């Protein structure tokens, strides 16, 4: 007790004592360890005078250091005076060449520095995926012909105008097989695009015509309901030929090797370390861009580090992991979530000779899974929702198309289906099934849950096959699995981005689900213009998936994040780059209003 009195007037020691006491309550319950802590504290109190003298020395050093580099001690996450924001990225942008880029971090940068014919905006209902003119000021769609009129004030950041030719060049280059663009398929709605990409036709056969600098006419293979949404996608962004060629294969590899036409310019890029985006004064819509700069001083994928950086006021936005969500909740931080459009589902191997080719067995598995339990007890992350639908409800064409089967488990029906399966397969016991999963803690927890549910309710043994990402993909492609816990992210705002997945011809249909009725409906939907008739087709596709138990949709995961309170209008998108800070404003008092 004497000890405590001794340094109770010292706030630092008090705080240390509190923390130690807290630690001891948490982890160290034995008397011995508490004694140890007390001894440590006593030692510290003796050392304190010496430590203090060092601290003075250190402070002097610090002052010298700061004055040398000219940087302020505290870099704040949001600076209302200079209108700048600081963020962190989880990884170095792997590829800022919009023609070949595929990943979300690169898309985030490209969303801010480049602009396609159309772009996303927020409509009156608060929907962030509404379309508005980007480089194009107007467009008319007429069956298979689309005409775009470009703005005369849309400019590259070197001052030259963005012309129709820049789009033609970009699309022809992306379709050139030697460019090896992984997203070239997204250009396939353009007439002859697929044939050009397969090397069967020359690039000049592309159904894209430059009428003059400001007018672009596009012929499509067939009426494509979602074509407008596609033009916001990075592969559709314009690229100027002379600049692209001058980089000699290194387009987008450095800050000065990227020609911007968007709201921001990439002005600094120290690889692996930091990036800076500066407001582009030449952007046609620059007067509604309020941020002067977006600084990205940190690149790390450690969720704890990101959260700590946010708490120390260093960055303005941090995505939370399962662990940091708990910490944020404890500290009563304002947590936001956003459904990023992903779908997780259980894929079956429908190949000849595999047990899960049997529909009753698939149904039995589908019937024992209690998705609510999976989401609430196993995944236990805010923002994730259970689903039974392959086509998420946020899709514009699906919203009024509600056909949702029950999401709870029905053990009796499941056992009945299992009996039927055993009879059809002619076995007494279902052989062990191999479930392929990606080696991450959260996915493995889900797999273990499914394993237990199958064992307890059906007596079916499941072996979990954990693999690194690349090997999981290799095994999926080779058909070396029975089930797989998979996830899919949408590329554009149309059910087709999901429906396509189960088409016979699709390379991502790892389980080789083949259903002629499904394929026929898919083709029908592809050729129909947007409207009620097309929407009902997706309802029927969903019905086929349900009847066949082609896959088992499980969850729609979400992103959970904390964000600086003074940031207004940070838009979240499900495709084509997220988060969107192009029109973000800093309102310093926003945090104070109740």
């Amino acid at each position, binding site marked *: 007790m004497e000890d405590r009195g001794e340094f109770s007037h010292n706030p630092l020691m008090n705080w240390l004592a509190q923390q130690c006491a807290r630690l001891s309550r948490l982890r160290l319950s034995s008397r011995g360890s508490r004694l140890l802590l007390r001894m440590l504290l006593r030692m510290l109190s003796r050392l304190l005078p010496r430590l203090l003298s060092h601290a003075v020395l250190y402070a002097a050093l610090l002052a010298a250091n700061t004055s040398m580099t000219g940087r302020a001690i505290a870099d704040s996450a949001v600076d209302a005076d200079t209108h700048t924001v600081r963020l962190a990225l989880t990884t170095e942008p792997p590829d800022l060449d919009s023609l*070949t880029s595929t990943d979300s971090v690169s898309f985030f940068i490209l969303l801010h520095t480049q602009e396609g014919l159309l772009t996303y905006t927020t409509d009156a209902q608060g929907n962030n995926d509404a379309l508005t003119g980007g480089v194009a000021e107007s467009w008319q769609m007429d069956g298979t012909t689309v005409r775009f009129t470009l703005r005369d004030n849309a400019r590259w950041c070197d001052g030259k105008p963005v012309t129709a030719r820049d789009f033609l060049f970009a699309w022809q280059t992306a379709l050139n097989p030697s460019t090896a663009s992984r997203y070239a398929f997204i250009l396939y709605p353009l007439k002859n695009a697929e044939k050009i990409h397969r090397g069967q036709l020359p690039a000049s056969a592309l159904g894209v015509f430059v009428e003059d600098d400001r007018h672009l006419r596009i012929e499509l293979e067939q009426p494509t309901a979602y074509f407008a949404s596609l033009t916001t996608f990075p592969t559709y962004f314009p690229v100027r030929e002379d600049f692209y060629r001058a980089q000699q294969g290194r387009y987008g590899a450095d800050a000065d090797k990227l020609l911007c036409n968007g709201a921001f310019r990439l002005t600094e890029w*120290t690889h692996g370390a930091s990036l800076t985006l500066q407001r582009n004064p030449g952007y046609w819509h620059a007067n509604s861009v309020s941020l002067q700069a977006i600084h990205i001083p940190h690149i*790390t994928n450690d969720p704890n580090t990101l959260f700590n950086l946010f708490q120390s006021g260093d960055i303005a936005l941090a995505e939370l992991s399962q662990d940091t969500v708990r910490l944020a909740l404890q500290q009563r931080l304002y947590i936001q979530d956003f459904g990023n459009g992903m779908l997780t589902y259980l894929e079956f191997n429908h190949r000849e000779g595999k047990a899960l080719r049997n529909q009753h067995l698939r149904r039995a598995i589908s019937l024992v899974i209690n998705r609510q339990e999976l989401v609430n007890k196993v995944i236990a992350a805010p923002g994730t929702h259970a689903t039974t639908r392959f086509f998420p409800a946020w899709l514009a064409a699906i919203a009024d198309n509600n056909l949702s089967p029950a999401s709870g488990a029905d053990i009796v029906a499941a056992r009945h289906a299992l009996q039927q399966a055993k009879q059809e397969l002619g076995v007494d016991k279902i052989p062990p099934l191999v479930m392929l999963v990606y080696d991450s803690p959260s996915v493995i927890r889900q797999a273990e849950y499914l394993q237990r549910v199958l064992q307890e309710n059906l007596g079916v043994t499941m072996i979990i096959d954990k693999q690194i990402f690349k090997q999981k993909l290799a095994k999926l492609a080779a058909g070396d699995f029975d089930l797989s816990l998979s996830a899919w992210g949408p590329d554009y705002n149309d059910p087709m981005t999901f429906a396509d997945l189960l088409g016979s011809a699709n390379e991502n249909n790892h389980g080789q689900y083949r259903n002629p009725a499904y394929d026929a409906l898919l083709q029908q939907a592809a050729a129909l213009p947007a409207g009620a008739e097309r929407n009902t087709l997706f309802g029927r596709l969903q019905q086929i998936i349900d009847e066949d138990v082609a896959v088992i949709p499980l969850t729609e995961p979400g992103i959970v994040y904390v964000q600086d309170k003074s940031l207004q209008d940070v838009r979240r998108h499900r495709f084509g780059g997220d988060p969107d800070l192009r029109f973000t404003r800093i309102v310093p008092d926003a945090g104070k209003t109740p």
Partner: protein
Amino acid sequence: MMRYAIKRIAVGLLTIWFIATATFFAMHAVPGDPLADDKATTPEIRAALLQYYGLDQPVLTQYTRFLGNMLRGDFGISFTQKNRSVNDIIRAHFPVSALLGCLALLISVVGAVLFGVLAARHHKRWPDYWIMLAVIAGISVPGFVFAALAQWLALKIDQHLGNIIPVAGWGTFRHMLLPATMLGLGTMAYLTRLLRSSMLDVQQAAYINTARAKRLSSTRLFFVHELKNTVLPVLALLGPTIATITTGGFVVETVFAIPGLGRYFVQAIQQLDYTVIMGTTVFYGSFLVLMVIVVDLLYALADPRIRLQDMR
């Protein structure tokens, strides 16, 4: 001496070749497709990618091609970071790791000498016990625990006392201090133990008694006779220590968001980025071999017995 040096260098080169070869074939034996991605590619794109990275050739052709390029100092282009050569990655990120490592080494050596000597001089008294307890903790607790704890502490200091130590990041000396200390802790603990026992040996040596008998001043005795002889055997370990500390900062680099090379080294393996795996492994391997050779040569210079032994 010349013969000894040439011999050491030849063995070093052979080691590097062996490292390169073993890594190359081990890497190709790792299951998984380096070009696979979330969205499956058409056979046409796949063929173009295979050709671009030279993976369409038989493994042996790839190997000879790799060796040829390696001799010219060219490790090719990264699979995951388009348009970035492995040489660029090493050039940009190794200096960061090296700076962090040097600082960590400095901290650990200074700390180790301080604590090692302190423990030895107070042998079997409480400073010795406390220091040895800390040493055991330093050796047995993995670096990421210290790193995470230190960051948490930095955050608390930040919240209660103001921004003194940055939570993470890189750029100024302030940013380097905490990660360098955390990176150096393990080495410091290890060296402290060595120095302590080395010092204890020296204290019992006959020449110390002689020096005492000559009534040398205790400062002179300590600095000229004791400390010098204590540090010598530890020097031999410095080569590999420098290499591990400048290259082994992966965890610290991730926790403190430092743009060092360690990150690339580890991530490349997870992503099967063949060229980066080869480039960083050969580079780190060569660095380690170089450090060992340099220390061996220095040691041979300092101690004639070693080079004589090797002659025979």
